[in-house]
């Protein structure tokens, strides 16, 4: 053996083994466990990919472009929201802040998270193109909802009955989603809580808007509607400084339960509720509990179900009949409740996604719609309550909701949150056939239930026009 040959050979082998070890190390990161790094939050490549995802457009039910994505020369995308009236419903999309409301609920569809898109992006480096969606929002109804809530703090929801289409939704005050990145911190700290979707995510006490529920219990147990009740207009004391009375100022009067319902006077319901009894009240409250659990189909971020304590006939009766007890609901839940009333006792399941248009496709594909309904009360009871609510609009505290030649029923209510007044209006409108619409309005920091009813009337009129346009 010549000198150096054996040693040289060993060094060469060691070096070659070293290269193989490095290849194995690279294989580990590139092939065996790439996802452990690719999916890390601090991987800037994930951000870069996100910046190049061309999210799908969002259209209203009648074809108005509500949100779209601009792409600059460098392939960087910007989300644009051109229709201000739709901002409260659309929410926002931000690479940094995430997505909310419609943008959040249908994020997976909008960003094109399909296996085919991912494969195409991986192999051909084609930008990921999201799927366009058409939502059920009607541009006229949505415009009315937004316009009438302008300057207010509160929420409004309009649902088509019996199918459950969300025709309009708003939460006020409104923020501009086009500048969400710049404004986010300010909005987050803002006392007005603009980022909070008051329509679906915030729960309020029902106040005297609980009366339709109490009335259903009364009707189911055969309580007399036309018997006179003394001192019916007296307010119910909630505390030393706070009391809830009728929705409009009335002198000391004796009223029937029907009239008390029309003016949202709470006192007569104390007797009625006692007469209904604990079992029946608990049953109806459990049904409301089930109803408040209903969410917009596809909305994962909607408010959790309201927590309801059992009805107690002795303690806290005033709190129960004034809706200031444990039961809290979102405006969406109240709209669903109204929907159940106008839908002959069957609760519709609301939905927002109407159809999708995949990249390159020319035909919209209808999204699956929720088909189930939840029985809330009997058809007879529901129809009797509809009549009582029509009476409210004609002769009661909800008169501001009346519109000529439109069949509208409604009810107003007054609630308090930490001593601050809240005004409710729930109402329905009927159109041709079984077509109807249900609306819930909540105005914060005002006891002007007439204003709530007026806003409700305008929205119901817009819903009516929309429904007639669909089915003249």
């Amino acid at each position, binding site marked *: 053996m010549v*000198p150096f040959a054996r040693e040289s050979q060993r060094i060469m082998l060691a070096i070659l083994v070293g*290269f193989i070890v490095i290849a194995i190390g690279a294989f580990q990161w590139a092939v065996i466990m790439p996802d452990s790094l690719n999916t890390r939050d601090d991987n800037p490549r994930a951000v870069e990919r996100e910046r190049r995802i061309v999210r799908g457009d969002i259209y209203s039910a009648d074809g108005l472009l509500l949100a779209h994505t601009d792409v600059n020369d460098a392939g960087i995308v910007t989300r644009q929201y051109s229709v201000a009236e739709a901002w409260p419903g659309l929410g926002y999309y931000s690479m940094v802040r995430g997505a909310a409301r419609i943008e959040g609920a249908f994020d997976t569809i909008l960003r094109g998270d399909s296996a085919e898109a991912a494969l195409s992006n991986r192999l051909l480096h084609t930008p990921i193109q999201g799927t366009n969606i058409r939502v059920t929002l009607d541009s006229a109804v949505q415009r009315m909802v937004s316009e009438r809530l302008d300057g207010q703090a509160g929420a409004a929801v309009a649902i088509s009955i019996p199918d459950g289409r969300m025709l309009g939704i708003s939460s006020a005050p409104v923020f501009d989603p086009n500048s969400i990145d710049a404004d986010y911190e300010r909005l987050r700290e803002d006392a007005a809580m603009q980022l909070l979707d008051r329509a679906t995510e915030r729960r309020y006490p029902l106040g005297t808007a609980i009366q339709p529920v109490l009335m259903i219990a009364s009707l189911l147990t055969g309580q007399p509607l036309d018997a006179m009740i003394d001192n019916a207009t007296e307010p119910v004391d909630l505390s030393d400084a706070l009391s809830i009375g009728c929705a409009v100022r009335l002198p000391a009067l004796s009223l029937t339960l029907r009239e008390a319902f029309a003016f949202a006077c709470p006192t007569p319901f104390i007797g009625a509720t006692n007469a209904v009894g604990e079992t029946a009240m608990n049953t109806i409250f459990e049904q409301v509990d089930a109803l408040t659990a209903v969410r917009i189909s596809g909305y994962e971020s909607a408010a959790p179900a309201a927590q309801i304590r059992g009805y107690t006939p002795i303690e806290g009766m005033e709190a129960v009949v004034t809706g200031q007890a444990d039961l809290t609901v979102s405006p969406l839940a109240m709209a669903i409740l109204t929907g159940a009333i106008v839908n002959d006792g069957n609760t519709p399941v609301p939905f927002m996604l109407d159809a999708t248009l995949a990249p390159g496709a020319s035909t919209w594909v209808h999204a699956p719609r929720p088909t189930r309904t939840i029985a809330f009360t009997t058809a007879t009871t529901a129809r009797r309550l509809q009549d009582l609510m029509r009476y409210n609009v004609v002769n009661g505290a909800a008169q501001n909701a009346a519109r000529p030649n439109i069949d509208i029923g409604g009810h107003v209510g007054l609630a308090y949150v930490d001593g601050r007044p809240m005004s409710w209006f729930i109402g329905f409108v009927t159109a041709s056939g079984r077509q109807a619409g249900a609306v819930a309005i909540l105005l914060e920091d005002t006891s002007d239930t007439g204003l709530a009813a007026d806003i409700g009337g305008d929205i119901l009129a817009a819903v009516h026009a929309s429904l007639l346009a669909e089915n003249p």
Partner: protein
Amino acid sequence: MSTLSAVPLAAPAVVQTRQPRHSALYLLVLAGVFLVVNALQVTLVTGNPRVWLGIATWIACTGIGWILTRRLLAGTDRLIFATCMVMSGWGLLMIYRLLPNFGDRQAVWLVVGTVAMLTALRFPDLLGRMRRYRYSILLGGTLLLLATILFGTNPSGFASAPALWLGTGSVFFQPSELLKIVLVVFLASYLAEQYPVLRSAALFERKRRLFLAPRIAGPVVLMWGICVVILVWQRDLGTAILFFALFVCLLYVASGSNWVLVAAAGLILAAGAVAYFLFDVVQLRVDIWVNPWIDPDNRAYQIVQSLMTFSAGGVFGQGIGLGYPSYVPVIHSDFMFAAIAEEFGFLGVITVIALLMVLVSRSFRIAALQQGKPYQTLLAVGFCSLIAVQSLMIMGGVVKIIPLTGVTLPFISYGGSSLVVSFFMVGILLRLSAVKG
């Protein structure tokens, strides 16, 4: 009979080596097509046509180099030339893609490197001169190191960056690169003379204790001194380890003693332990190597981003210009391997490793050809080991197999000094390849 004469000089023997003539040509043509296609993509993605200047430079250097290596010296190993040109072309392409402003400069260095290679190939009696003037060369190298310590600067201008460069204006060079050649030449010529002693049975004899003689212990002390100076004064961990590894390789080959490897391993561990507590830079690199995930956004940012390039590249890569390798700091220099991983995927990584393996195996084959010529053998082993160990160090660091050491990937990374010195070493290897034992 003296124990020193117990080690016979080997009789020259003929080692058959196949000249893969056409393989080298095919490789270069394939590389040319690869570079042109990718340059087209770089132009389309970046909108900057400057990359074509680099491609033209590479084609010119490759063509002239191909012709002149044959004309200047017959029988050179064409595959070594081809693999080096492929890697330098790929590196040039990546530099144009990552830092277009640096691309032109690297193209100039490619020309200079090619000239250096051809010079090494044909300079009259180059190997003999280097051997004769080894002490002068060593003195020059030491002075250069001293000058770097005294007048060193960093082209980036950052005060905290290691001052490893000499130069002014826009022209800088890294003396430690030149020192690589100096050390290989000195150690090869010295050990070629002393290897009979190193291999003799009298080395550790009680009476004679030859291992303590200045002629044996001298180079050990010298190398240790150089490594310590580089580590302490220049805080250049990578170069210190590289020089030490080079020394161990050559000493092992010259002495044939496994104890050299054992002692070297022990020394490295001991020195590593001491350096860990003495030098922040060593402590940092070991800590982030052990667990980079505890501080991925700060201290371990570079290695974490480097690993992410591999996962982002997957098997086929993102395609040149379509990845985000620039998130790795100093991507164009120390982390070019990571850039290739992201944009050319695991296939690109394997290709680079395969090219280096070809270069290494062919170079060791050249060492084997120098039978009976210890100086030439040790020169070939030295240069080859230098390129291989340097590659292993940076690639191993980039994939987190070993702690990071800031050295360049030969032929691929940005850096004029590294490129020119690497080509010069290849020139000598080519020269040796033409001299069959």
